[in-house]
């Protein structure tokens, strides 16, 4: 392989940390969701990189299967998350997560 495993891991780590920063610092609920999606993508890059460089020797496919499951979960999470954002916008006229602290009493 021309591209070593560590390159992928570094890029994935960067992608994960950028997504984390987004999820922690954006006020808009939809933007927070986008940050979470970035983090999930970083995980998938890791899974596939390890699959290609380590697991392929054993000729099994756990990495790919895991990645597919992660994508499924991400799709489900995006659907429910965006539905929540829309419901929130409809009832409270805001999608700012800072304003959503009803649990605090």
């Amino acid at each position: 392989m021309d591209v070593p495993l560590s390159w992928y891991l570094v890029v994935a780590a960067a992608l994960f940390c950028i997504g984390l920063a987004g999820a922690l610092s954006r006020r808009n609920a939809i933007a927070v969701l986008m940050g979470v999606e970035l983090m999930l993508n970083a995980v998938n890059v890791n899974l596939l990189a390890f699959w290609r460089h380590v697991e392929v020797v054993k000729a099994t496919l756990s990495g790919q299967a895991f990645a597919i499951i992660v994508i499924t979960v991400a799709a489900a999470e995006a659907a429910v998350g965006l539905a929540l954002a829309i419901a929130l916008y409809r009832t409270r006229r805001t999608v700012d997560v800072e304003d959503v602290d009803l649990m605090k009493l």
Partner: protein
Amino acid sequence: MTETFFNLTWLIPLFPLAAFAIIVLWTNRHRLLSTWIAWIGIGLAWILGWIVFFQAWGGFEELTPPTHKYPVPLFSIPTGTTSLNLGFQVDTLTGVMLFMVPFVCLMIFIYSKGYMNYGTKDVDPRYSRFFAYISLFACGMLGLVVSDNFLTLFVFWEIMGLCSYLLIGFWFDKTYPDPKRITPKEAGLKAFLTTRVGDVIMLAGMLLLYSQVGSLTFSDVFSQETLEQLAHTYAWGNVPWATFIALLFFGGAVGKSAQFPLHVWLPDAMEGPTPVSALIHAATMVSAGVYLVARSFPLFVAVEGGSQLAVVAFIGAFTAIFSSTIAVAQNDIKRVLAYSTISQLGYMIAALGIGAYVAAVFHLITHAFFKALLFMGSGSVIHGVEHGHHHSHHHATGPEGHEEEGEFDANDMMNMGGLLRRMPVTGWTFIVGALALTGIFPWAGFWSKDEILADAWKTFQEGGHFGVTANWGFFVWLLLTIAAFLTAFYTGRQIFLTFAGKPRTAAAEHAPESVPSMTWPLVILAAFATLLGLAGTPWANQFFEMIGESAVILGERLAHGEFNLVIALVSSGVALAGWVVAWLIYGFRPLTVPVDPLRRPLGPIYTLLENKYYFDEIYQAGIVRPAIRLAQACYTFDDKVVIDPIVDGVGRFGRWLSDWLRRAVDNPIVDGAVNGVGRVTTWFGEFMRATQTGKVQNYLLVAAVTVFLLVALYVFRTYLPDWLSALGLG
């Protein structure tokens, strides 16, 4: 031929589960249909259960370890590198549980129809829901019994916990005029949270077991090699894994079987409907703890003479005597039975603690029958007194007068008396149950209790199996014999207060006998309570042959619990003495006023017993209230928004630290220390406030910081030596 029915064992829990699903999804508006569906569900489970039991009875050689074929894996689902193995198993212990559980369940299901006032205008508004819940419960208990691994056992165990919570709090809208009296809602919560303590301990045991063995299937865990390995590897110091895990499992059993010190939930569980008390809190669920210890018994005896058996024996014997003293001073007819249940479960646990495996299981089975009988009898009494109360009230003050409603306590034995004439079937069956409970020859309790006492005495005389020392045998024998006296005394007291003499209230005078759907189960259970002991008589101990011969533990066949005439005479004499004393105090001159004649001579001791040694108060003051106060402190401080909890908290800590240092230097040490304690509290409160912003991103940031700290910890642990050596320090 036999294999076909054993292979169907896994179907048994599915019948009640199907009944639950059908009632909840489709028929919950139709009461009669729901009743029949629940009955059919448990009825099918009962028939199949008994078929399996009788086949096991007839041919238990097939189930005996060297050749047994029945753990049967149902699913083995690979999940990556491990796989999820679920299955069922039949052995003789499962067999006898399948004899007891579905039958007692069926009796109680039938009884419930009358108890929940089917067909009258008083019918419970949540009638169908009740049958759905008890069906789900039956599924939980049957599933627990047929599981072949700790994982599904735990799942069913928790299903039962959930049902117990739902059913104790079944009348969740009920309130009492006395604010100190526990309401069903609170009682349900209390039961759930108290048993949760045990469940968490048990879960920890399961996790450790899995980490050590790599499997939770009984046949893997209890194999000779695994047990040897667990007995000779050490958790720390010289505590072997087997001892440690066994004690954690015992923690789960203590919670579920209401043993000291987690016994406090069971008496309050009596707030639920009486069939629930009979089903869950006397016959089946509470015995799941004993079943767990019996099931994992090989683990308990893997280490010869380990401390785990001593703990089990001590807790069991202590609980037996401790709760029977409380029962002496209770006036609520169901609470007396609740403490009696705790005490009898203590007998079983103590028997397991001295290695008397067969005797414990035998007592488990007989106890289930007669205690279910007693509870259902008490329910019938309460039901009758309630009706009598309505009746007499109606006549006395006319239809409008309901002002007294709610103050009359139909559970209070002081409001009863003379009921034998009003309710003959209930009364006589109750007396049969009482004779069985107190161990009077030839009722069932005599044989099972006597076997425990004989085994304890034999341990004292000859030393026990599995390295149990003789002293434990004597300890257990002594405490259980005293408890047998107390059992007879409080049971006699209960009988004389309830059924003998003259009615002390108008309600008792007008109490009608219950409907046939309630009395028939009583009669049938009374027959079992009378005859069941014959399965385990010393001359033809078929029960022993079935359980003892097949439950080969560590290659050691359990020795036959020999009949000891002296011990039998002693325990019978003690029980008779208890009855006689009860008769002298309560029966000879029946009470006319609702005051216990023991209250005056016993004085403060009576008050202590009446208040159950103040355990509820101690737990309230020691655990519940501090937790609430901490939560309230956090909540009170929680009204100001803090921008950055971490920075703020660290800053505050720094300020507090420098403050404290200045004081410690400047002022006398004591003053500084006193202020320091106050400041720690304040700082802690403020810090807790700071973390409670209610903003999800703050919480996430804390989580991210934690992740970073964990990664950093890993880096330092791994690379710090390298760095130090690079700097020439290592």
